[in-house]
């Protein structure tokens, strides 16, 4: 039989159970901590905070409930670790204030104390952010208050609180874009849910069991996190959770209302009948509304009666689920594509589905180059080079595969610069061609690349950086030629400095040294050697040793470029 009143003794047991439940699952929470949460691991910090709180509480022998809650809160405030711990401690402080003077508590007092907890936690944070533990706490306390109004008993209030918290947790990615991008729910919120779940289990007289094996150290996808801990998946799946489940309210509707003297409660009341997962947050001048409804038009109408609408977004969640399920069965999108493309993006998390402001397409040949360029942040590497110039259509396809409104193109070959300029005209994206003539110059350009900022400035800076290096390319002559500074016989190795034939030799290595002799100055400090597919690493390293001994003032780095045709590509800077 469920208890009718919350006593200090029971409170102690519930807190112990909640803390133990979270402790068992702290690694799962830690694993969710993938975005810059100030200071440390969320799960560990919350668990340690609760441990400190419980130590202070002791066994609560002879205490009133109010005093016990007070003692627990004090312990939490003193022992708070990290932001998550601090916020948790503020919840407990508010809870204690709500319970002040209570010998024991019934459902009504419990719900009131939870409301006080939420209020205190919100006030304690300098700038409350939705999509965090605060949101989850409010989900719990609001659900508890509704349960009381519906006549729930103590256990019913706790069950409602857990349910409300889980729902709010599932919503966190739609409130914090960084969560949506990382594909996780908020870590602090998850910790809070675990804490409440442990409490509920104990209130029901269940033994608190260790987490199932599912408590892996891998960040779980949004919506899947609660499932991983052994719960049914959340009721709605706006964020890529894969299911064909019927969606009761089809349209995830979001907008901002800008106005004066906006009353959040009134707006909430007007919207409540239209659907579920309602969230109305903000202040008297700007309010964000999130609601799942079958009548998005009516929701917008409600908005217009209060002020002007901004950033309206309506997404069909049923369609999203279908697309997500399709996506999963064909090819799962890469982690970077979590935000999805335009129509799938329910939350405006990344507007229009862009994952960054400025993307990069580069042309290169060879697996080594592909890997090097991608490691520097190039989004799409188009295979191509001296003997294989890509088409404008190929470049356009690559440009449009980049999830960015502005795309820098590095042609990395003088024969591809015009193609890149052509591609500019064939796409709606804003394309910025940085006319790099060698792939080594492309690498130099990438040193100055940042994915944010003014695209024109970034492209210009990349261009300047590319001009800071001089390039040597070593290949072989396909026929005799007298047209250059050096006479060339078919089959000779030739060295091009910035595209001009300036050296020739019997073998690639001798040609490298001959070219470098003309090029390296005392101001240079770095020589990079990228060897091609026809050169072994040993040969390249032996060459590097000779270069080092001849130009000791320079660093010499060796990388596998894997390019055809060119035995070596070198950058001198």
């Amino acid at each position, binding site marked *: 039989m469920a208890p009718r009143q919350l006593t200090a003794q029971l409170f102690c047991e519930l807190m112990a159970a909640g803390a133990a439940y979270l402790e068992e699952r702290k690694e799962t929470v830690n694993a969710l901590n993938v975005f810059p949460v100030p*200071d440390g691991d969320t799960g560990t910090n919350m668990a340690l905070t609760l441990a400190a709180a419980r130590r202070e509480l002791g066994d609560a022998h002879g205490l009133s409930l109010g005093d016990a809650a007070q003692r627990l809160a004090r312990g939490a405030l003193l022992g708070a670790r990290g932001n998550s711990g*601090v916020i948790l401690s503020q919840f407990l402080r508010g809870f204690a204030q709500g319970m002040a003077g209570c010998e024991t508590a019934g459902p009504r007092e419990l719900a009131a104390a939870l409301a006080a907890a939420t209020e205190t936690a919100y006030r304690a944070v300098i700038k409350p952010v939705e999509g965090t533990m605060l949101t989850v706490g409010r989900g719990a306390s609001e659900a508890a208050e509704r349960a009381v109004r519906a006549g729930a008993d103590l256990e019913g209030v706790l069950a409602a609180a857990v349910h409300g918290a889980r729902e709010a947790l599932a919503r966190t990615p739609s409130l914090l874009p960084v969560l949506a991008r990382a594909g996780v729910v908020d870590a602090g919120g998850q910790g809070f849910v675990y804490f409440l779940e442990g409490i509920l289990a104990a209130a029901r007289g269940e033994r608190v069991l260790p987490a199932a094996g599912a408590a892996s150290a891998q960040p779980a996808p949004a919506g899947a996190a609660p499932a991983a801990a052994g719960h049914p998946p959340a009721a709605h799946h706006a964020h890529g959770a894969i299911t064909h489940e019927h969606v009761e309210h089809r349209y995830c509707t979001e907008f901002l209302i800008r106005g004066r003297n906006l009353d959040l409660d009134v707006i909430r009341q007007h919207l409540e009948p239209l659907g579920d997962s309602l969230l109305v947050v903000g202040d008297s001048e700007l309010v964000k509304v999130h609601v799942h409804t079958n009548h998005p038009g009516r929701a917008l109408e409600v908005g217009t009666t209060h002020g002007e609408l901004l950033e309206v977004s309506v997404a069909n969640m049923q369609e999203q689920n279908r697309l997500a399920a399709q996506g999963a069965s064909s090819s799962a999108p890469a982690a970077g594509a979590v935000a999805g493309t335009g129509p799938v993006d329910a939350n405006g998390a990344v507007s229009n589905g862009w994952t960054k402001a400025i993307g990069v397409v580069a042309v290169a040949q060879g697996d080594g180059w592909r890997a090097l360029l991608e490691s520097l942040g190039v989004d799409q590497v188009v295979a191509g080079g001296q003997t294989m110039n890509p088409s404008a259509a190929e470049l356009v396809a690559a440009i449009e595969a980049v999830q960015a409104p502005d795309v820098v193109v590095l042609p990395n070959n003088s024969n591809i610069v015009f193609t890149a300029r052509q591609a500019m005209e064939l796409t709606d994206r804003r394309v910025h061609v940085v006319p790099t003539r060698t792939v080594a110059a492309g690498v130099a350009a990438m040193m100055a690349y940042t994915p944010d900022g003014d695209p024109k400035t970034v492209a210009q800076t990349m261009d300047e950086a590319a001009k800071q290096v001089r390039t040597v390319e070593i290949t072989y002559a396909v026929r005799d030629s007298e047209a250059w500074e050096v006479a060339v016989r078919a089959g000779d190795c030739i060295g091009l400095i910035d595209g001009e034939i300036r050296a020739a030799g019997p073998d690639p290595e001798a040609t490298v040294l001959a070219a470098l002799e003309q090029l390296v100055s005392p101001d240079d400090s770095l020589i990079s050697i990228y060897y091609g597919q026809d050169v072994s690493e040993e040969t390249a390293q032996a060459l590097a040793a000779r270069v080092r001994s001849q130009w000791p003032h320079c660093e010499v780095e060796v990388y596998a470029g894997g390019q055809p045709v060119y035995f070596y590509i070198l950058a001198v*800077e």
Partner: protein
Amino acid sequence: MAKIRVVADSGCDIPKDMADELGIRLVPLTIHFGDEERQDGVDLSPEEFYRRLRAGELSRTTQPAPAAFEAVYRALAEEGVEAIVSIHLSSKLSGTMQSASLAAQSVAVPVHVVDSRSASLGSGLIAIEAARMARDGASVDEILERARAIVAQQQVLFMVDTLEYLQRNGRIGKAQAFLGGLLNVKPILTLEDGIVAPLERARGRAKAVARLLDRLAATAGAAPLRVAVLHGDAPAEAAALAGQIRARVQVAELFIGLLGPTIGTHVGPGTLGMVYYPA
């Protein structure tokens, strides 16, 4: 003693003797090596910290509990201090501000908590200037106004040997874009709105230092600068950089500061950088 006192945190990297001389109270962050907890600057020295980092140990930091600030504020109140200016690490990088703000609400003496939007001596220089002004009899309003002006004008440039430390501790911010290079690349970073942001990359340390100097010269303006050179246990490089800075720009005052365990945890050994603003 001044009626206005300055409180800072161990992440501000204010040298102890200077803090003592100016009456700045430093609240330590906690440094964790696994389960071992140390207090930055209390029972953990930078020497030990970097030795252990280089030996492959991993550290984490935790902001001071509100109670730690409360204790310091109360002690100052009991000394008869009339107001406290509490200057801390960027709220975007650490929850230290949060703890200080909470503690400020629960003491009787007025506490003005300032978000430096910076770190290390970037925050520390503000505290040092504030403490000097307090010593010279400035009012709270004057001190806060100057502090805000510095926050607005201060620039931060630094290079890290590896982004591993920023990434591991979740402070990588937008510099995420610079992760995972296969080349020997040194990221050049700044703090933008109080978070780590990428500027560019350089091939190797020598080029990175040259780029730091170029960027300093390009952004310095005509007025003499107050500069702090910061290093993650690279004193010789820091001294050389300080010399080059004096050769390139007008310097009013120059500090060389070791990045202590709090910031060292997040940037790692070999970090080199500078903060500066018109003096």
